[in-house]
C-alpha cells in the first residue's frame, strides 16, 4: 500500500511537471495560434543557463533562479515574438509548425555548441535531495512538493487570468483578430509579447524543476523531447482549457509511473512502452476528443504555389537527369554515394509535396514510413547472402505496398483530424515507431517462426538488383534515384493538373464545400495518404540500401522534422522544393560539417575557426527555417520570381549557358576544382536575376497603373491596359507564364 502511495505521489509529481510545461503550450497557442514545438528547447536552454550560473559560475541558487526565471525566460519569449513569431500572421499551419521546429533545432544546436554535449552536467534538487518530509507514512522530497505546489499555482493562476481578468480575455481575442483588438484600444503586439514572455517563463520553470527529478543529468535532446511528452496533456484540454490540461497531465504522469512500477520487469518492451506512452496517449486523445475551434472566415494565407504543366515538368525532369549525369562525371565514388543518398531523401520529400503541398494534410514523420518499408524490404525482399545478397524488385514493390497499407491504417483513425492535430498524430506515430519498433532488438516467436524486427539495432540492406541493373555501382544508384525522382515528380505534376489534383485542392481549401459537391472526403484523404506513404516508403528503402546499413536513429523524429522543415524552406508546393529539402537535409549537413572538419584537420592552426564556421553553418540552417515566415512560399518560389524578369532575354540566357558550359569544361578537365565550379555556378545563378532586373529597369514611360484615371482619364483602352498590367487575364499569357514557372 505504501509503495502504491509512493508511486502515486511520484506520478503526481511527474504530472505536475507535465502540467507546467503543457500550460505554457496552451498559453501561447490560445493567444497566438502557434503551437510551439520549441517549448521544450526553451526549457532546455533555460536549464542550461541555470546550470551555468549556479554550478558553472557558483552563483547562489536563489540568484540564478531569479535571473533565469525572472529575466532570461521572459526575455527569451519576448525576443522570439519580436524577431520571429510576429511575422507568422496569415501563414498556413505547416509554416507555423516548421518555424517553431526550426527554432527547436536551432536551440539544440546552439546549446550543444556552447555546452559541449559530452561533458556531464548535473543539477540538484531544491533544498537538497535529502530534504524530505513524511506525509501519511509516505516520504516526499521537498523538491517534489515544490513541483506540485508550483503546478497547482500555475494552473489556478492561468485559469483566473484567462477568465477573470481583462488582460487574459484580450489575450484570447488576439489570436482571432488583432486588428479588431486595435479598434478596441488594445495593442496586440504588446499583448502577444506578454504572452510569449509568460509562456517562455513557464517552459524554463518546467525545465529547472524536472531535471533533478529525472536524475539530475542535463542532456539537450532528452530535455527537449521531454516537453514533447507534455503535448498529450495539452491536447487533453484541446489546447484551450487549463483545467483539462492539468487533469490530463496528472493522468499522464501517473500512468507512466504505474507502468514503470507494475509491469513485469522481464517484459523487455515494457521499458519501451513507458517511453512511448505519452505518444500513445497523445494519439488516442487526438482521436477520441473531437471539437475544433470555431472558424473565422476563411482567410487567404500568404503561401502561393503555381502548379507547373505536366509538359514543362517533364522538360525540367529531363534537364535534371542530364544535369545530374554531367555532375556525376566530376565526382568521385564517395561523393556520388552521398549525392545518391540525398536524392533518396528528395524522393521521401516528394511524399510531402503531394500530401502537404497539394492536399494540405500534414505528416511530420515521413521517415517513419521509410522505416516501415525498410523493415519489410529487409525481412522479405532480400535474396542471397553476404556480399552477394541483393534486394529484389519484388521486395521493393512489396515494401512499398506494405507501407501504403500502414500509411492508410495510420491515417484511418486520424482522418477526421486536420492541420495541427493531424500533424501531431503523425508525429505520435513516428515517435511510437522509433521507440517501440525500431528499438525492438529481441527475438519473438510467432506461429513457430523466430525473428527479431530490428536485429542488433542495425539493418544491413543490400543494394537492389533488377536484371542487369546492379545498384552496387554508385553511378547506377545515383542515376536510378534521380530518374525515379524525376518520374515521380512528373507524375505528381500530372496529378496536380488533373481532376484528382483539383479535388485535392478543393478539399484543402474548403472541406465543407467539397463534401457538398459530392466528394467523399474520407476516401480522398485515405487515398492520398496511402499514395504519399508509398512514395516515402520507396525513398526510405532506397535510402537504407544506398547507405548500406541503417539504425533506428536514421528514422528518428528529429530527422523527419528537419526534412519537413527544409522542404518547406524550399517550397513544399513545388517538386523542386522537395529536391532542395531532400538534398540539404540528406547530405547538406554531412557535407558542410565534413568539409570544415577536413579543413580543420588539414590546417591545425586554423582548427578552431573552421570548426566554428562549420557549427555556425549548422545553426544557420535553423535560421533559414525561422526565416520562412517572411517568405512562406519557399526559396524556390523566390528564385522563380527572380527569373521572371529574364523571360525573353534570350541573349542573356544563352550567354549564361555558354559561361556555365565553359566552367563545366574546365572542371571536367581539372583546370578548376569542384569547389570553384560550385561557387562560380552559384554566383552565376544569383547574378542572372540581378542582370534581368537591370535590363527590365529601362522602362517605357507610361502612366503608372495607380494613377490611371487620375493623371489620364479613363478610356476603354486604358482599362484594357490596366487589366493587363494588374496582371490577370489573357489565357495564352498565363499558359506561357506557367511554363516558365515550371521548375516545380
Amino acid at each position, binding site marked *: 500500500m505504501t509503495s502504491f502511495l509512493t508511486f502515486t505521489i511520484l506520478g503526481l509529481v511527474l504530472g505536475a511537471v507535465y502540467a507546467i510545461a503543457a500550460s505554457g503550450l496552451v498559453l501561447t497557442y490560445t493567444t497566438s495560434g502557434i503551437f510551439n514545438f520549441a517549448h521544450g528547447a526553451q526549457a532546455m536552454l533555460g536549464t542550461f543557463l541555470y546550470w551555468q550560473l549556479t554550478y558553472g559560475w557558483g552563483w547562489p541558487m536563489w540568484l540564478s533562479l531569479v535571473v533565469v526565471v525572472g529575466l532570461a525566460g521572459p526575455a527569451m519569449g519576448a525576443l522570439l515574438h519580436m524577431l520571429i513569431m510576429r511575422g507568422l500572421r496569415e501563414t498556413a499551419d505547416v509554416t507555423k509548425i516548421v518555424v517553431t521546429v526550426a527554432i527547436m533545432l536551432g536551440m539544440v544546436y546552439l546549446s550543444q555548441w556552447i555546452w559541449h554535449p559530452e561533458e556531464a552536467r548535473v543539477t540538484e534538487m531544491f533544498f537538497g535531495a535529502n530534504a524530505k518530509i513524511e506525509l501519511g507514512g509516505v516520504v516526499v522530497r521537498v523538491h517534489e512538493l515544490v513541483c506540485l505546489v508550483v503546478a497547482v499555482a500555475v494552473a489556478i493562476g492561468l485559469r483566473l487570468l484567462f477568465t477573470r481578468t481583462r488582460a487574459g480575455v*484580450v489575450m*484570447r481575442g488576439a489570436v482571432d*483578430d488583432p*486588428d479588431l483588438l*486595435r*479598434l478596441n484600444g488594445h495593442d496586440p503586439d504588446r499583448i502577444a509579447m506578454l504572452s510569449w514572455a509568460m509562456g517562455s517563463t513557464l517552459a524554463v520553470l518546467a525545465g529547472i524543476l524536472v531535471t533533478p527529478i529525472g536524475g539530475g543529468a542535463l542532456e539537450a535532446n532528452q530535455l527537449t523531447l521531454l516537453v514533447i511528452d507534455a503535448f498529450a496533456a495539452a491536447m487533453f484540454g484541446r489546447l484551450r482549457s487549463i483545467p483539462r490540461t492539468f487533469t490530463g497531465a496528472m493522468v499522464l504522469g501517473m500512468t507512466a509511473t504505474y507502468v514503470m512500477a507494475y509491469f513485469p520487469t522481464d517484459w523487455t518492451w515494457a521499458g519501451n512502452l513507458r517511453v512511448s506512452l505519452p505518444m500513445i496517449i497523445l494519439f488516442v486523445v487526438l482521436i477520441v476528443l473531437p471539437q475544433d475551434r470555431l472558424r473565422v472566415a476563411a482567410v487567404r494565407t500568404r503561401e502561393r504555389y503555381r502548379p507547373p504543366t505536366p509538359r514543362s515538368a517533364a522538360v525540367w525532369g529531363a534537364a535534371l537527369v542530364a544535369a545530374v549525369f554531367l555532375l556525376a562525371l566530376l565526382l568521385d565514388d564517395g561523393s556520388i554515394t552521398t549525392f545518391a543518398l540525398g536524392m533518396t531523401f528528395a524522393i521521401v520529400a516528394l511524399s510531402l509535396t503531394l500530401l502537404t503541398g497539394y492536399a494540405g494534410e500534414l505528416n511530420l514523420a515521413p521517415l517513419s514510413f521509410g522505416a516501415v518499408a525498410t523493415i519489410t524490404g529487409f525481412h522479405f525482399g532480400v535474396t542471397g547472402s553476404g556480399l552477394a545478397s541483393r534486394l529484389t524488385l519484388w521486395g521493393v514493390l512489396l515494401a512499398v505496398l506494405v507501407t501504403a497499407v500502414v500509411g492508410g491504417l495510420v491515417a484511418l483513425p486520424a482522418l477526421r483530424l486536420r492541420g495541427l492535430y493531424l500533424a501531431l498524430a503523425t508525429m505520435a506515430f513516428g515517435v511510437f515507431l522509433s521507440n517501440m519498433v525500431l528499438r525492438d532488438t529481441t527475438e519473438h516467436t510467432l506461429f513457430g517462426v523466430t525473428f527479431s524486427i530490428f536485429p542488433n539495432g542495425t539493418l544491413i540492406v543490400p543494394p537492389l538488383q533488377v536484371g542487369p541493373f546492379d545498384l552496387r555501382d554508385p553511378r547506377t544508384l545515383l542515376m536510378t534515384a534521380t530518374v525515379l525522382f524525376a518520374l515521380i515528380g512528373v507524375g505528381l505534376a500530372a496529378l496536380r493538373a488533373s481532376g484528382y489534383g483539383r479535388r485535392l485542392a478543393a478539399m484543402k481549401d474548403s472541406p465543407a464545400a467539397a463534401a457538398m459537391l459530392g466528394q467523399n472526403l474520407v476516401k480522398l484523404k485515405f487515398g492520398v495518404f496511402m499514395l504519399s506513404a508509398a512514395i516515402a516508403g520507396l525513398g526510405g528503402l532506397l535510402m537504407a540500401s544506398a547507405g548500406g546499413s541503417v539504425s533506428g536513429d536514421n528514422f528518428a523524429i528529429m530527422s523527419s522534422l528537419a526534412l519537413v522543415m527544409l522542404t518547406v524552406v524550399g517550397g513544399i508546393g513545388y517538386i523542386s522544393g522537395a529536391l532542395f529539402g531532400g538534398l540539404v537535409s540528406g547530405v547538406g549537413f554531412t557535407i558542410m560539417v565534413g568539409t570544415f572538419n577536413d579543413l580543420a584537420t588539414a590546417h591545425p592552426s586554423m582548427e578552431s575557426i573552421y570548426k566554428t564556421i562549420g557549427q555556425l553553418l549548422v545553426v544557420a540552417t535553423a535560421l533559414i527555417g525561422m526565416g520562412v515566415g517572411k517568405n512562406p512560399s519557399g526559396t524556390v518560389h523566390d528564385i522563380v520570381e527572380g527569373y521572371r524578369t529574364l523571360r525573353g532575354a534570350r541573349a542573356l540566357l544563352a550567354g549564361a549557358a555558354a559561361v556555365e558550359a565553359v566552367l563545366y569544361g574546365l572542371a571536367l578537365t581539372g583546370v578548376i576544382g569542384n569547389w570553384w565550379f560550385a561557387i562560380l555556378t552559384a554566383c552565376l545563378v544569383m547574378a542572372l536575376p540581378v542582370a534581368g532586373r537591370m535590363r527590365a529597369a529601362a522602362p517605357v514611360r507610361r502612366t503608372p497603373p495607380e494613377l490611371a*484615371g487620375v493623371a489620364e482619364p*479613363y478610356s476603354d483602352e486604358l482599362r484594357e491596359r490596366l487589366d493587363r498590367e494588374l496582371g490577370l487575364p489573357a489565357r495564352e499569357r498565363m499558359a506561357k507564364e506557367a511554363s516558365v514557372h515550371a521548375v516545380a
Partner: protein
Amino acid sequence: MNEQAPLLELTGVRAAYGPIQVLHGVDLRVHPGSVVALLGPNGGGKSTTMKVCAGLLPLTGGELRLAGRRVNGITAQDAARLGICSIPEGRGVFPNLTVRENLWAATGTGARLADLEEAAYTRFPILGERRHQLAGSLSGGQQQMLALSRALGTDPVILLLDELSMGLAPMIVTRMYETVAQLVAEGLSVLVAEQFARAVLPIADTAALMLHGRVVASGRPGDIEDQLSSSYLGG
C-alpha cells in the same frame, strides 16, 4: 451645419495596399452631430477610407484631421482611445470569446464593463440571454448587434460603420439605424459606408459618392441618390 469646424476631415487622402494604390485623394468632412453616408459600388474604396480613418491603414499622402488636429499616422489603438469607434466590415466580434467577454474586450478605451453590459442588454435583450454563448456561434444579426453594442457603452465621439446592413433582416436593419439615430441625437457623429443607400439615406445629413478611390460628389442625400443610380449603371 457647415459653419462649424469639422470633427473629422480628410483632405487629399491617398492610401495603398502594398504597391496598389486604392485611394487617390479623398476629400471628406464629418461635422459634429451629423451623419455622413459614404456610398458607391463594389471596390470603390469605402472600406479603405474607413480603415484610414480608424488608423488601421497608414496614409501615403494627404491629411487626416481629428477635431482640427493633424493625426496622420495615428495608430488604431490611439484613435480608439481618442473616441473613434469603428465597426469594421463583416462581423466585428471575436468569435472565440463569449458575448460578455467581447464587451469586456471593448472596455480597452476606458469604459466600464458594467455600463457596456447594461447598455447592450437593454438595447438588445437577446444578447443578455446569450451572454455566455461564444460570439462565433451567434447568428449573423446577433453578431452585428454585439458589434454595434461597442458604440453604445463606450461613449465615442465619432462612429465609423462599414456595411452595417449587410446580411441583416429588414427589421433589424431598421432597428440598427434607429439605434444609430438615437446615438446621433445624443450628439454622436457618424460616418457610415453602405453599398445600398436605401437603409441609411433617411438618417443621413450628407451623402458622398465614392468611385475609383475618390469622392466624386457630395451633397444632400436626395441629389446623391440620383447620381448614384446613374453611376452604378455607368461603372
